[in-house]
Protein backbone atom coordinates (compact mmCIF):
# COMPACT_ATOMS: atom_id res chain seq x y z
CA UNK A 1 0.00 0.00 0.00
CA UNK A 2 1.07 3.58 -0.46
CA UNK A 3 0.82 6.05 2.39
CA UNK A 4 1.30 9.79 2.51
CA UNK A 5 3.70 10.46 5.39
CA UNK A 6 3.82 13.92 6.97
CA UNK A 7 6.94 14.86 8.92
CA UNK A 8 6.99 17.47 11.69
CA UNK A 9 9.68 18.82 14.03
CA UNK A 10 12.60 16.42 14.50
CA UNK A 11 11.04 13.96 12.06
CA UNK A 12 11.77 16.50 9.32
CA UNK A 13 15.43 16.46 10.32
CA UNK A 14 15.55 12.65 10.48
CA UNK A 15 13.74 12.05 7.18
CA UNK A 16 15.29 15.08 5.50
CA UNK A 17 11.91 16.12 4.09
CA UNK A 18 8.46 17.39 5.07
CA UNK A 19 6.47 14.58 3.48
CA UNK A 20 6.70 11.65 1.13
CA UNK A 21 4.69 8.95 -0.60
CA UNK A 22 5.76 5.74 1.06
CA UNK A 23 5.07 2.21 -0.22
CA UNK A 24 4.91 -0.39 2.48
CA UNK A 25 3.39 -3.74 3.42
CA UNK A 26 2.86 -2.42 6.99
CA UNK A 27 -0.82 -2.66 7.90
CA UNK A 28 -0.79 -0.64 11.15
CA UNK A 29 0.86 2.61 12.30
CA UNK A 30 3.02 0.60 14.72
CA UNK A 31 4.40 -1.62 11.95
CA UNK A 32 4.90 1.38 9.70
CA UNK A 33 6.80 3.24 12.40
CA UNK A 34 9.11 0.27 12.92
CA UNK A 35 9.90 0.21 9.23
CA UNK A 36 10.55 3.95 9.17
CA UNK A 37 12.88 3.75 12.17
CA UNK A 38 15.01 1.27 10.25
CA UNK A 39 14.99 3.29 7.04
CA UNK A 40 15.99 6.59 8.70
CA UNK A 41 17.92 5.23 11.71
CA UNK A 42 15.38 6.78 14.08
CA UNK A 43 15.57 5.58 17.66
CA UNK A 44 12.80 7.66 19.22
CA UNK A 45 10.62 5.29 21.28
CA UNK A 46 7.15 4.74 19.80
CA UNK A 47 5.59 4.84 23.27
CA UNK A 48 6.50 8.55 23.56
CA UNK A 49 4.78 9.42 20.29
CA UNK A 50 1.19 9.79 19.22
CA UNK A 51 0.06 8.96 15.71
CA UNK A 52 -2.42 10.68 13.44
CA UNK A 53 -4.22 9.04 10.53
CA UNK A 54 -6.00 11.34 8.08
CA UNK A 55 -5.59 14.33 10.42
CA UNK A 56 -7.10 12.58 13.45
CA UNK A 57 -5.34 11.10 16.44
CA UNK A 58 -5.39 7.33 15.94
CA UNK A 59 -4.56 4.03 17.54
CA UNK A 60 -1.20 2.38 16.91
CA UNK A 61 -2.88 -0.91 16.01
CA UNK A 62 -5.71 0.34 13.82
CA UNK A 63 -5.73 -1.12 10.27
CA UNK A 64 -4.46 1.27 7.61
CA UNK A 65 -5.95 1.80 4.18
CA UNK A 66 -4.22 2.55 0.93
CA UNK A 67 -3.68 6.31 0.56
CA UNK A 68 -3.95 7.11 4.27
CA UNK A 69 -2.16 10.25 5.42
CA UNK A 70 -0.04 9.43 8.47
CA UNK A 71 1.95 11.60 10.87
CA UNK A 72 4.00 10.64 13.90
CA UNK A 73 3.51 13.26 16.59
CA UNK A 74 6.43 13.92 18.94
CA UNK A 75 5.67 15.60 22.29
CA UNK A 76 4.26 19.04 21.52
CA UNK A 77 5.81 22.34 22.63
CA UNK A 78 3.43 25.11 21.66
CA UNK A 79 2.40 28.05 23.77
Amino acid sequence: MTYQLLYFAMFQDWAGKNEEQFSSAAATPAALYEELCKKYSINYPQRQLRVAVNDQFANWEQPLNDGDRIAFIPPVAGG
Partner: protein
Amino acid sequence: MYFEISETPIDIIERRTRMVQYHAGGYVSFEGWIRDHNHGKEVRSLEYQAYPALAGTEAEKILQEAKDQFAIDDCDVVHRVGHLDVGEIAVWVGVTAAHRGAAFDACEYIIDELKIRVPIWKNEHYLNGKSGWVECHECKKKAIEKGLIHE
Protein backbone atom coordinates in the same frame (compact mmCIF):
# COMPACT_ATOMS: atom_id res chain seq x y z
CA MET B 1 -15.24 30.66 19.83
CA TYR B 2 -12.34 30.14 17.44
CA PHE B 3 -8.83 28.78 17.13
CA GLU B 4 -6.54 30.32 14.58
CA ILE B 5 -3.01 29.72 13.41
CA SER B 6 -1.41 33.00 12.38
CA GLU B 7 1.65 33.57 10.22
CA THR B 8 1.67 37.27 11.09
CA PRO B 9 1.92 39.07 14.47
CA ILE B 10 -1.17 38.66 16.66
CA ASP B 11 -3.11 41.92 16.97
CA ILE B 12 -4.13 41.70 20.63
CA ILE B 13 -6.37 44.75 20.59
CA GLU B 14 -8.27 43.60 17.54
CA ARG B 15 -8.75 40.12 19.06
CA ARG B 16 -9.85 41.56 22.38
CA THR B 17 -12.23 44.07 20.81
CA ARG B 18 -14.01 41.30 18.93
CA MET B 19 -14.85 39.77 22.32
CA VAL B 20 -16.40 42.85 23.93
CA GLN B 21 -19.95 42.01 24.88
CA TYR B 22 -22.17 44.13 27.01
CA HIS B 23 -23.38 41.27 29.13
CA ALA B 24 -19.87 40.01 29.94
CA GLY B 25 -18.41 41.50 33.08
CA GLY B 26 -14.93 40.06 32.96
CA TYR B 27 -12.22 39.44 30.39
CA VAL B 28 -9.15 37.35 31.17
CA SER B 29 -6.35 37.00 28.67
CA PHE B 30 -3.12 35.07 28.55
CA GLU B 31 -0.21 35.88 26.26
CA GLY B 32 2.83 33.67 25.85
CA TRP B 33 5.85 35.79 25.01
CA ILE B 34 9.16 34.67 23.52
CA ARG B 35 11.69 34.83 26.33
CA ASP B 36 15.36 35.66 25.86
CA HIS B 37 16.32 32.42 27.57
CA ASN B 38 15.08 28.87 28.06
CA HIS B 39 16.62 26.32 30.41
CA GLY B 40 19.70 28.47 30.80
CA LYS B 41 20.34 28.98 27.09
CA GLU B 42 20.16 32.44 25.54
CA VAL B 43 17.49 32.49 22.85
CA ARG B 44 17.80 34.74 19.79
CA SER B 45 14.64 33.72 17.95
CA LEU B 46 12.57 30.65 17.16
CA GLU B 47 10.33 28.92 14.67
CA TYR B 48 6.95 27.54 15.56
CA GLN B 49 5.63 24.78 13.36
CA ALA B 50 2.08 23.41 13.46
CA TYR B 51 0.24 20.47 11.97
CA PRO B 52 -2.65 22.77 11.03
CA ALA B 53 -5.46 20.29 10.31
CA LEU B 54 -4.91 18.32 13.50
CA ALA B 55 -4.09 21.40 15.61
CA GLY B 56 -7.40 22.95 14.56
CA THR B 57 -9.61 20.02 15.53
CA GLU B 58 -7.76 19.42 18.80
CA ALA B 59 -7.83 23.11 19.82
CA GLU B 60 -11.53 23.36 19.02
CA LYS B 61 -12.13 20.33 21.23
CA ILE B 62 -10.30 22.10 24.07
CA LEU B 63 -12.35 25.29 23.60
CA GLN B 64 -15.56 23.27 23.67
CA GLU B 65 -14.43 21.50 26.86
CA ALA B 66 -13.76 24.90 28.45
CA LYS B 67 -17.24 26.10 27.49
CA ASP B 68 -18.79 22.92 28.89
CA GLN B 69 -16.86 22.99 32.15
CA PHE B 70 -16.88 26.69 33.06
CA ALA B 71 -19.62 29.32 33.06
CA ILE B 72 -18.03 31.48 30.37
CA ASP B 73 -19.46 33.46 27.48
CA ASP B 74 -16.73 33.02 24.91
CA CYS B 75 -13.14 31.85 24.42
CA ASP B 76 -10.69 32.32 21.56
CA VAL B 77 -7.13 31.24 20.84
CA VAL B 78 -4.56 32.38 18.29
CA HIS B 79 -1.16 30.70 17.91
CA ARG B 80 1.68 32.12 15.84
CA VAL B 81 3.75 29.97 13.51
CA GLY B 82 6.94 30.73 11.59
CA HIS B 83 9.85 32.87 12.71
CA LEU B 84 9.44 34.84 15.96
CA ASP B 85 11.88 37.15 17.70
CA VAL B 86 12.36 37.63 21.44
CA GLY B 87 9.48 39.68 22.85
CA GLU B 88 6.92 38.57 20.25
CA ILE B 89 3.64 36.93 21.16
CA ALA B 90 3.56 33.16 20.55
CA VAL B 91 0.02 32.55 21.74
CA TRP B 92 -2.98 34.54 22.93
CA VAL B 93 -5.99 33.17 24.82
CA GLY B 94 -9.01 35.37 25.55
CA VAL B 95 -12.00 34.46 27.72
CA THR B 96 -15.10 36.47 28.63
CA ALA B 97 -17.57 35.62 31.39
CA ALA B 98 -20.21 37.21 33.58
CA HIS B 99 -18.10 36.35 36.63
CA ARG B 100 -14.33 36.45 36.76
CA GLY B 101 -13.63 33.14 38.53
CA ALA B 102 -14.88 31.11 35.59
CA ALA B 103 -12.89 33.26 33.16
CA PHE B 104 -9.63 32.67 35.07
CA ASP B 105 -10.26 28.93 35.34
CA ALA B 106 -11.17 28.54 31.67
CA CYS B 107 -8.23 30.61 30.44
CA GLU B 108 -5.76 28.55 32.45
CA TYR B 109 -7.44 25.30 31.36
CA ILE B 110 -7.17 26.25 27.70
CA ILE B 111 -3.48 27.17 27.74
CA ASP B 112 -2.59 24.15 29.90
CA GLU B 113 -4.37 21.72 27.56
CA LEU B 114 -3.05 23.43 24.45
CA LYS B 115 0.51 22.91 25.62
CA ILE B 116 -0.10 19.19 26.13
CA ARG B 117 -2.39 18.28 23.25
CA VAL B 118 -2.14 20.64 20.28
CA PRO B 119 0.47 19.60 17.68
CA ILE B 120 2.74 22.64 17.59
CA TRP B 121 6.49 22.50 17.99
CA LYS B 122 9.26 25.02 18.44
CA ASN B 123 12.77 25.17 17.14
CA GLU B 124 14.87 27.53 19.23
CA HIS B 125 17.81 29.43 17.77
CA TYR B 126 20.41 30.26 20.39
CA LEU B 127 22.87 33.14 20.59
CA ASN B 128 25.71 30.62 20.20
CA GLY B 129 24.45 29.81 16.68
CA LYS B 130 22.98 26.42 17.55
CA SER B 131 19.34 25.49 17.30
CA GLY B 132 17.12 22.60 18.19
CA TRP B 133 13.58 21.28 18.51
CA VAL B 134 12.50 21.90 22.06
CA GLU B 135 11.15 19.11 24.19
CA CYS B 136 8.89 20.65 26.79
CA HIS B 137 9.59 18.29 29.66
CA GLU B 138 6.69 19.54 31.74
CA CYS B 139 4.32 19.05 28.77
CA LYS B 140 5.72 15.59 28.13
CA LYS B 141 5.27 14.62 31.77
CA LYS B 142 1.67 15.81 31.70
CA ALA B 143 0.98 13.99 28.43
CA ILE B 144 2.27 10.82 30.13
CA GLU B 145 0.02 11.46 33.14
CA LYS B 146 -2.93 11.80 30.79
CA GLY B 147 -2.02 8.52 29.10
CA LEU B 148 -1.53 10.22 25.71
CA ILE B 149 2.02 8.89 25.52
CA HIS B 150 4.02 6.57 27.75
CA GLU B 151 7.16 6.75 29.87
